[in-house]
């Protein structure tokens, strides 16, 4: 009985999420069929669903999906290592933090994707350009959330560490880091979203690479159901990253 209740409690949230998603699709379908939304701008969800097979078979979606996901993953690894490192530095050195925090926050709102010609000049028309644009554009949220997480560590936990005579390294790895992990993961998830948007955006702009290029080509052919189907694959990349980061976070901090 308890087991059944636990399972229903576990399955209820994803079931509700799927039901809400399905309801939204049905509403859009009804609105398009009723002429409230122009079907030449937004295709019917049933048309999009029907186009999946064609897009997968004819447009090499798997390799494009893997390419975009790989670029986003590489950017994600870079921004996790560098972003958390810079966040720790800013936390550790107050002067640096006071001097740079506003600039980092300002960088978050800068449309770095428009600087793609500069990245093209530096890194060439290659996957490295996508990775570096994704990395640079996604860095601010990781840095800021790392600083926030470390600075938000409850004073009493730090005092517990001091009372046990922890070294600075122990204080960081045993207390500050695990305490800041939830905030760091919020930053990493935000960063991955920023990275993915910028990577797909540049692929679209320079017509090179993975899913962004596919969306560009399908849009140029005015294949709207195919375009939306390709966008769904970008969403799928994002869903995969959310699932993976959630799994890593639960592994590192099982209680959350």
């Amino acid at each position, binding site marked *: 009985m308890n087991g059944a209740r636990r399972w229903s409690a576990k399955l209820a949230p994803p079931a509700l999420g799927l039901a809400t998603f399905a309801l939204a699709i049905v509403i859009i379908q009804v609105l398009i069929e009723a002429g409230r939304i122009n079907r030449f701008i937004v295709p019917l969800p049933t048309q999009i669903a029907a186009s999946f097979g064609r897009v997968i078979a004819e447009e090499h979606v798997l390799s494009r999906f893997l390419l975009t996901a790989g670029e986003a993953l590489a950017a994600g690894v870079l921004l996790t290592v560098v972003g958390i490192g810079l966040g720790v530095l800013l936390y550790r050195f107050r002067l640096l933090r006071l001097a740079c925090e506003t600039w980092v926050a300002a960088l978050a709102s800068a449309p770095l994707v428009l600087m793609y010609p500069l990245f093209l000049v530096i890194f060439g028309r290659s996957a490295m350009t996508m990775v570096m644009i994704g990395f640079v554009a996604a860095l601010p949220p990781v840095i800021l959330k790392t600083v926030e997480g470390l600075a938000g560590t409850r004073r*009493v936990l730090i005092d517990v560490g001091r009372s046990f005579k922890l070294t600075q390294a122990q204080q960081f790895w045993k207390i500050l880091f695990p305490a800041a992990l939830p905030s760091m993961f919020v930053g990493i998830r935000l960063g991955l979203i920023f990275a993915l948007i910028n990577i797909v955006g540049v692929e679209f702009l320079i017509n090179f690479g993975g899913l962004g290029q596919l969306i560009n080509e399908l849009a140029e052919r005015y294949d709207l159901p195919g375009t939306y189907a390709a966008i769904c694959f970008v969403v799928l990349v994002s869903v995969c990253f959310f699932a993976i980061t959630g799994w890593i976070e639960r592994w590192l901090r099982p209680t959350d």
Partner: protein
Amino acid sequence: MASVLSERADDAAPRMKAFDPILVVEDIVKRFDTPDGALTAIDRLSFEVAPGEFLAVIGPSGCGKSTLFNVIGGLLGGYEGRVTVGGEIVRGPHAAIGMVFQEESTFPWRTVIENVAFPLEIAGVAKAERLERARHFVALVGLTGFERRYPAELSGGMRQRVSMARTLASEPKILLMDEPFAALDEQTRLLLGDKVLQIQQELKQTTLLITHNITEAVQLSDRILVMTYRPGRVKRVVSIDLPRPRTSQIVSSDAFGHYVAQIWSDLREEATRGMQDAEAQSLHPGAAR
């Protein structure tokens, strides 16, 4: 009825010399810089604690109790006077002093057993051994069966017991506690008091309890040091001559009531000063204290 022993702060010194103290607090003066000038939180505070003794320090809010806790624990520097443990001057956190904090201080990302084993992990004790030793302290605070639970799955009282077990696992010579049950309801507080008495009697643990709760102080202590309101000084030292082993049932005895009444008569004047000062501050912010 047990006799009610008390002594003025000035009379306390000769009495305290009768034992070989493990903790000596000598002439502590701690000032803080505030926008209104220097604020003396503690002024020439001295006392000693004998091995195995349970001493409570009681005083109204604002008398410098938490400052004293941090000074003795080595978390706060920049004071005059000195604190020694077994003859060794405390210049920072000291292995002989184990601290239990007022705020909930368990690590939420660690299970109960991992929390309790934490100081042993820091000391480099092998995993199997530290878990075995941690289990002993988990049992000591009455949490057997909860080893694999996370703090979020426990009540406030259970979490404080985890904190206490974690500190005890480091096997300190002196257990220093800052109002560890302040956030708990009265009944839980009394029951946890029983647990503290049981632990203290079992381990013969020297304990220094900082509190503002008179009942708790009388229930647990051998002596109670009453502090004045700001600046914190020793107002009186009261010896609690109640039989041991004790339980929370002692709160219904006449002698207990006498001690409570006596300490309250000392504290009332100080608490009133504190309240008047707080009211004056809210009426005239920035007025000299």
